[in-house]
């Protein structure tokens, strides 16, 4: 890695994020906390900015927001469907492993996809193949693996691909 010129704000967005989160966590706007938040949000990025990797930029902010709402909605419906499965007869459950082929390339995209899969109905992502082309999923109740793969791909992967443009 080539040595880069020292910048006072190496990560402006993270500085802002740290500043607001510090204030939110303390639930206060007193002078002391404002000072602490400012100092921390300037100093921490100096130390960690060299550890960051190249990240894809969000290409379509509106789609990103609608994706967040889609996931929130699915989290709620996931809670209900898993609750029903858990309380229902266990003998009828057909668990199974599925490998989903990935088209999405960026690491952040794959991370988001895997996390979304874990939070949404009946599926938990277990592992990713080393070449980052397969996502292994465990499903609590698997009726049709083809259907599940198609659903993950069209419902979650396609919008993520579009958001990051990769």
């Amino acid at each position, binding site marked *: 890695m080539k040595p880069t010129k020292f910048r006072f704000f190496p990560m402006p967005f993270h500085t802002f994020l740290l500043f607001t989160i510090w204030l939110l966590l303390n639930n206060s706007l007193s002078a002391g906390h404002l000072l602490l938040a400012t100092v921390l949000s300037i100093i921490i990025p100096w130390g960690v900015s060299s550890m960051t990797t190249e990240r894809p930029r969000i290409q379509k902010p509106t789609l990103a927001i609608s994706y967040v709402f889609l996931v929130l909605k699915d989290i709620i419906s996931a809670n209900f469907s898993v609750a029903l499965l858990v309380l229902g007869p*266990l003998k009828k459950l057909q668990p199974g492993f599925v490998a989903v082929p990935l088209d999405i390339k960026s690491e952040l995209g794959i991370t988001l996809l895997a996390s979304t899969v874990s939070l949404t109905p009946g599926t938990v992502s277990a592992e990713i193949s080393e070449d980052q082309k397969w996502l292994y999923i465990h499903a609590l109740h698997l009726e049709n693996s083809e259907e599940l793969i198609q659903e993950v791909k069209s419902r979650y992967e396609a919008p993520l691909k579009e958001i990051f443009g990769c």
Partner: protein
Amino acid sequence: MIFFVEAIASAILIFGGVFLLIGSIGLTRLPDVYMRLHAPTKATTLGIAGVLIASCIIQSYRQESLSISEWLITLFLIITAPITANMIAKAALHHEIAPIHRTQGQELIVTAKDRTPPPSEAKED
């Protein structure tokens, strides 16, 4: 007014509590480690969110200013829950813990552990 606020908060608390309870019931009822993972990652997110929202409502009312730190906790939970689940699943795969018999696609466990493409695909190459 306080009665009205408390009634809403209690309703949300009960709602969240029911989901937390279901998550715990799932932990004891489900037969193998992979299936058990589903209960705490799903049922619990909504349960905790319910408790936190109730806390947010009561605190905002008492302090007469909006209390947002609860939302942050919910946000952190949504970020960390899937990662925890993923780590437990990985650990279970590496310890070669066998899933229950009727699990479909068991041939994928070996390739998932080795992080290689699934067997059907390897033959085609």
